[in-house]
């Protein structure tokens, strides 16, 4: 996995872990937990977009962030409902919460791929390995205006059918004069 992304995920896991510990110890209510979790997600996605090379405060940066965070908040509201309905803290929640950390891959790769019109991004959930995807895009800028060759590079431990097929099909995916061909 990309080293910078790995560090972002580790940082997210620590923040999420803190929120889960506070919930387990009943230092915060489920509503406070949800607000804290949402804040962690928003900050994490902004950090990831910045690490990918796009200013989160720019118009396009804000647009990307709005979407990626909204997607996660949608899932989070379902998670919150489960927690509010449960009589006590369940161990499996920590693992479930940890999966949200992987979601920073989407804004990170959006930035790293220069916001090119690509079919999918690693960790965006469109592969059979979902957010555990360790693949990467390698973008090669060519001479001329908006010419790119984009290679889907499979992670060392990625063996899911989608990733194998993408590595074969998008080797490269060609963008010429701004058009996917």
């Amino acid at each position, binding site marked *: 996995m990309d080293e910078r992304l790995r560090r972002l995920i580790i940082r997210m896991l620590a923040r999420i872990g803190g929120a889960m510990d506070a919930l387990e110890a009943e230092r915060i209510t489920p509503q406070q937990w949800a607000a804290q979790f949402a804040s962690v997600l928003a900050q994490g996605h902004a950090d990831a977009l910045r690490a990918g090379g796009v200013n989160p405060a720019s*118009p396009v940066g804000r*647009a990307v962030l709005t979407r990626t965070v909204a997607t996660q908040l949608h899932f989070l509201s379902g998670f919150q409902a489960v927690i509010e309905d449960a009589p006590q803290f369940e161990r499996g929640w920590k693992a479930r919460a940890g999966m949200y950390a992987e979601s920073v891959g989407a804004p990170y790769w959006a930035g790293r791929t220069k916001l090119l019109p*690509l079919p999918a991004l690693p960790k965006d959930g*469109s592969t059979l390995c979902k957010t555990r995807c360790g693949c990467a895009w390698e973008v090669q800028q060519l001479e001329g205006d908006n010419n790119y060759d984009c290679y889907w590079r499979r992670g060392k431990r990625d063996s899911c*059918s989608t990733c194998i*097929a993408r590595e074969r*099909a998008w080797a490269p995916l060609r963008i010429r004069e701004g058009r996917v061909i």
Partner: protein
Amino acid sequence: MGTAANQGRARDMKARAIRIPRDALILNPERIARAVENGMQAAAEGVRADFYATTNTWERGVSFTISRPGAFRRIIGTDDEIWTMLNQGTKPHLIYPRRAKALAFATGGRAKTKPRVLGSSAGSQGSTFVTTRGPVQHPGTKAREWDTTAQKKWQQELATVVQRSVDSEV
């Protein structure tokens, strides 16, 4: 966008809003059109890769093509008969020996593909071999429904993919 078998279903899908930045694009129809075309082509590439994923472990190569019957339309298809047969499934039918005097087949194997899964695994041939002179009742093959599965998946992804194309124009 549609797969060769079920273009009609696309009409049933709910639309999701795509945000077009007012200052940068709204007065530039050429760039909006390019963004939508790019989104369509990118999504078609996604469908094609998913179709390839269903044949990763096959010994024979299967190719899939993307055609553009018109603006903002894509058809992803193949002329491979086995893939098409698995995609659609078969009804129970009798099998007779044709060139040989008896039928021989293995049982207890595991298929490489499953219905509604856009992937493939190693599978296994089975270890119990049966030989018979008479006809055999084949139970039929469950339709894999790869075309409808991919279409459902990418209709949901389409808004995201087109939005990414719009963002790339800003």
